């Protein structure tokens, strides 16, 4: 899986937890979950749990804390897929 494939599969998960349609339409690696997508930490937990299921991976506490942007999330998803 490359970064583009990850983001294509990841975007619909993010869409479930944000009202920021415009930001979502222009999603980039720099998009910040809290500041751009207005997703609170409780919903970031749900995104992580959904991503674990969708990508069949396990994300630990330290990785979860680093998931502040879409790019950071892709890094972690790809790393865990190779683990």
């Amino acid at each position, binding site marked *: 899986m490359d970064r583009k494939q990850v983001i294509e599969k990841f975007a619909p998960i993010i869409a479930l937890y944000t009202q920021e349609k415009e930001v979502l339409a222009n999603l980039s690696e720099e998009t910040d979950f809290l500041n751009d997508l207005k997703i*609170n*930490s409780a919903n970031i*937990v*749900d995104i*992580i749990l959904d991503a674990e299921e969708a990508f069949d991976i396990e994300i630990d*506490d330290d990785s979860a804390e680093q998931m502040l942007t879409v790019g950071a999330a892709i890094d972690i998803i790809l790393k865990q897929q190779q683990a």
Partner: protein
Amino acid sequence: MEVKKINDVDLLLPVKLALPYRKPFLFVDEFLSLTEDGASGSYTFREDEFFYAGHFPDRPVTPGVILTETMAQIGLVGLGIFLTKAYLQEAVAPFAFTDSTVDYLLPVFPGEKVLVRSEKVYFRFGKLRCKVEMLNAKQEVVCRGTLSGMILNPGKHG
């Protein structure tokens, strides 16, 4: 790895005392069980609870939002305190209510005793989600739903 099944009756009172709520917004009389998988407890709505005067004049009935609060205090916060062993600490870490979906099936009138029981869905990254139900003295379900909360500044747990 701890494999011992924990349901320590000695913790029922410490967990209650560690709850951050006080009258008139404490809706827990006692915890009945606390395990890794869920909590149960009871509360009797006093005839003179502050909200009955306005909800509603001449026909008091417990507001749904108070039933939800009661389910959260027993089923979610009580379980969270148990799971994080917060009862051992001087000051309990703040616990923020993050979401709830509740169906209300029957009214609860002044003087009624209710039983709340919760079942953990998950506790990860500091967020606890539970399925919770409330029963009246006739064992009828008065409300049920899914509640979640998040421990702010979580340590290494969950």
